[in-house]
């Protein structure tokens, strides 16, 4: 038996525990939670648990639909407007594991402002997520974002904006690129923004936000392409990188692999895998 024992690609359990992993981008049943508001989410959390355990994750943040038109299911939207607490079932089941950031609809500013008050001011949500597709997507340079960002900033909320730089152009006109997020972020220099997926095409994504110190990149959502984290650390610094798993539609291997296999220091891995996100959430 060779002394170089590994866990098929994973570091030792003690090492993983030392990273104190907080996942900023957990996507159980991302597009629809189930007709009752939670059943599909619960099933996908269960489906993810083996990977969550193997990764020794401490916390995972997911993005509930809260009835502001982020799904195409009118029945569900009506149900959750009447009974908003139905979205809380996963948090009740896994109270120490799950965190939440509400999905917003910038096309509906009034409802989104109400939702910010309902879920951020009064808790338990920690921030908001602006999607890149579906009925609520809107390019983040639109002026509708301004009152929403102002209110989120008042409440010290965290903002996750879906971004992609797609070769050949946007799939839909409402998508946002990292360059567009950089424009929005320049208007609100005191507010931190998370650039989800680092733009997917990360070489351009990193460059687009390089001069936006209030933008941090999130690491999930694309293949485990080698060199991503090394470039991000070099150009942005490890303090501006936040880990996301995109479980279960993507994998522990793809997403954790990007960080643990990167040629960076252990301290930098700890920043990326949890410390930066905790600081953003004021959970240090």
């Amino acid at each position, binding site marked *: 038996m060779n002394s170089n024992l590994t*866990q098929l690609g994973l570091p030792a359990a003690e090492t993983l525990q030392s990273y104190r992993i907080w996942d900023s981008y957990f996507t159980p049943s991302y597009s629809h939670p189930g007709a009752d508001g939670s059943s599909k989410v619960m099933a996908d959390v269960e489906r993810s648990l083996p990977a969550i355990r193997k990764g020794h*994750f401490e916390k995972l943040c997911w993005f509930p639909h809260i009835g502001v038109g982020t799904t195409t299911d009118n029945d569900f939207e009506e149900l959750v407007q009447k009974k908003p607490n139905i979205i809380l079932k996963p948090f009740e089941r896994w109270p120490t594991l799950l965190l939440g950031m509400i999905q917003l609809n910038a096309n509906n500013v009034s409802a989104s402002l109400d939702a910010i008050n309902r879920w951020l001011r009064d808790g338990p949500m920690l921030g908001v997520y602006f999607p890149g597709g579906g009925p609520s997507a809107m390019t983040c340079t639109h002026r509708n974002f301004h009152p929403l960002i102002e209110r989120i900033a008042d409440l010290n909320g965290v903002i996750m904006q879906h971004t992609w730089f797609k070769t050949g152009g946007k799939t839909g006109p409402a998508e946002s690129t990292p360059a567009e997020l950089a424009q929005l972020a320049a208007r609100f220099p005191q507010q931190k923004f998370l650039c989800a997926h680092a733009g997917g095409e990360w070489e351009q994504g990193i460059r687009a936000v390089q001069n936006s110190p209030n933008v941090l990149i999130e690491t999930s959502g694309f293949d485990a392409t080698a060199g991503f984290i090394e470039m991000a650390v070099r150009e942005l610094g490890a303090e501006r990188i936040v880990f996301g798993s995109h479980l279960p539609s993507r*994998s522990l291997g*793809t997403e954790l692999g990007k960080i643990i296999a990167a040629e960076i220091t252990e301290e930098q891995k700890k920043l990326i895998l949890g410390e930066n996100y905790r600081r953003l959430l004021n959970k240090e």
Partner: protein
Amino acid sequence: MNRRDLLNLAVSVGTASAVLPTIAHARVELTTEIHQIIDTNVSLFRWPFRRLPLDNIDGLTNKLRSLGITSAWVGSFEGLFHRDVAAVNTRLTNAALDRPELTPIGSVNPTLSGWEHDLQQCATAHRMLGIRLHPNYHGYTLNDPRFSRLLNLASAAGLFVQLAVSMEDTRTQSATMQVADVDLSPLPAVLEKIPAAKIQLLNHKLRSPLLQQLGSHPGVFFDTARIDGTDSIPKLIASLPSGRVLFGSHAPFLIPEAALIRVHESDILDETGLRSVLSNNAKQAFRKAMV
């Protein structure tokens, strides 16, 4: 003892001990020892669009060894664009000469004059066990008669064929060099006429019904490199006849740790299942390669 045995490493799998208060007794004990891992999808030399951390052969082989990968089937990134394919295959063979863990897989481009000679060189001069094709980078479809002829000749020469369906997500490619994934829909009909062919599809993201259609051909095998989702590899295995899914990482373009973790992260595969996908299926599918 053959050259593979020299490099057998022991790898203990997935001892996880998460302490998550809301997950009852969340402790997984799995001490399976995997003595052999065959990575069927590795490439040598430089990726044309970016320097990769493991694009040097020593760094790559050290990494694979550290992960317990005892054998790597290596193609050449040079095979994508170079037209002097003979030189590409000679460099690949030379690079693998003193590295018994590397099994060179030749490049053949059937749109180039004289490709039959390249194929013959792979089989005879280089004594390769297989070849790797890139129809999308080389500009032909699977309906092309040259593809059928190549499959026939490769099969007659005892060479297995790896067909790279993609090399990079189309959404992240260079704007000046966009290459669509290979359209596999003609392949079932082609294989009907060449029943002896053995072909492995690399970097695919196949779905039903084409996946099952291809899987019904006993000579078609699949790799795992771009199969994402926490339980997607066990699902892929379950959707195909036994023995068809072979571990592949697409290193060094993709991170090899990612591919390895994906195989076992869902805890769905038992010890036999892990051994099958990590080595046994490759040995059985392309038995000659393991001799």
